[in-house]
């Protein structure tokens, strides 16, 4: 589970990205799913994701792996694919291509509901189910600050550490690393492949001036 419905941030920032999953169902359409998933991934490449991981490889787009290696890894039945797009237009293009291909594998999209509703209508797609986030409960006082969670909630498994985000802000602020390179480093621990380095770079640009550093 990728926690993608709990991504935090401003509306403007949340509206800038869409997470898309390709998900075969165990016992229902696993058998024979691998070539269909592979074809769907080929279509996603045409729309231009900013990150993607198949469960057959678990290496993101910035790890040095080639598109061909990603595609060639999709030989295992039941391989799932996690991807993220940084614009409404790219998501729409990908959904139109997937709809036309009609491979019969479940597709999930995480994003601002009103935008996804509009895009689905424009594509002639009828969504089946919504998974609503009803927020965080319990010892919320123990959480990292909200502006750090805008980064960490891009990784659903919680393995992008708040401490790493703070360290990257320090490294950006002190000129050790660019916003983009820092974001690629932040994306590395996330093995679900939906950490969005484009949004992360924007966030680093926005947050770095707000922080002071205690070491260079």
């Amino acid at each position, binding site marked *: 589970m990728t926690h993608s419905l709990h991504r935090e941030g401003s509306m403007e920032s949340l509206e800038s990205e869409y997470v898309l999953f390709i998900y075969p169902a165990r016992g229902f359409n696993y058998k024979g799913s691998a070539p269909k998933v592979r074809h769907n991934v080929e279509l996603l490449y045409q729309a231009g994701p900013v990150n993607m991981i198949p469960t057959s490889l678990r290496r993101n787009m910035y790890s040095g792996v080639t598109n061909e290696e990603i595609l060639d890894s999709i030989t295992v039945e039941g391989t799932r694919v996690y991807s993220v797009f940084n614009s409404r237009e790219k998501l729409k293009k990908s959904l139109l291509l997937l709809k036309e291909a009609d491979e019969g594998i479940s597709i999930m999209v995480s994003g601002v*509901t009103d935008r996804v*509703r509009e895009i689905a209508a424009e594509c002639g797609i009828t969504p089946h189910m*919504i998974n609503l986030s009803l927020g*965080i409960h319990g010892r919320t006082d123990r959480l990292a600050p909200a502006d750090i969670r805008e980064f960490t909630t891009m990784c659903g498994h919680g393995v*992008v550490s708040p401490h790493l985000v703070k360290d990257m802000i320090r490294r950006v602020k002190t000129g050790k690393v660019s916003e983009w390179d820092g974001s690629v480093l932040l994306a590395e621990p996330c093995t*679900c492949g939906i950490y969005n380095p484009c949004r992360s770079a924007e966030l680093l640009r926005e947050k770095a001036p707000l922080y002071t550093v205690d070491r260079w």
Partner: protein
Amino acid sequence: MIIRQDICVGCGRCQPYCPTAAIRFEGDKSMIDQDVCYECSTCLRAAHCPVDAIAESPNVYDYPRALRRYFSDPSATHAATGIQGRGTEESKTNDVTLRVKEGEVGVAIEIGRPTLGMSILDIQRITRAIARAGVHKIEAHNPIHSMIANEATGDLKPEMLGERVLSAIIEINVKRDQLRGILRTLKEVAKEVDSVFCVDACTIVGPNLKIPEEVLESIRAEGYTWRPNAKINMGMGRAWE
């Protein structure tokens, strides 16, 4: 995870990578607090130790410590379910499986998220509360199900209670008219746990992504709000097996 003290050069590079801040200096070298470590292997996978001092703990797959690995490392295949991750396909394939049917709501309690983790003792507080609320069926394909000792009480296997995990998901299905009760229960148990959980509610939608008013009314009535962003099954799957 461990850091081999004979190899570590004390650069500290690995320390910020740990989601739970389990790595710290001990003298002039980094060491991992074994009580705090979730065995998520993020340090090994992403920190790129310049001298390869980070290694698997020799006891990482010993029961019950192995729970830490299964629930905290996204790339680990869970022994109880045979799949990676700590949840199930849940809403992601509901267009094919119809696990959550018309008139039902799938409720997921995402434990320890974001990035805080939770002790299994606290997880038991939640499973007990759910059982007291009259829900005794936790999704069978979810690894939490294999941890339950007594479905009637929500008790987990006692030998597990000393462990902790970075995240886990409790998945249940309720009828729409039961949603208010379970949301109320979760609000109450939130006061008892020493960590956090996120609450999800999955429901089949009508044309143009219309969310059933009965579901929204239950959410409002219990003082919850829903985020503007959500996860949406686009209804493009079909079964053929």
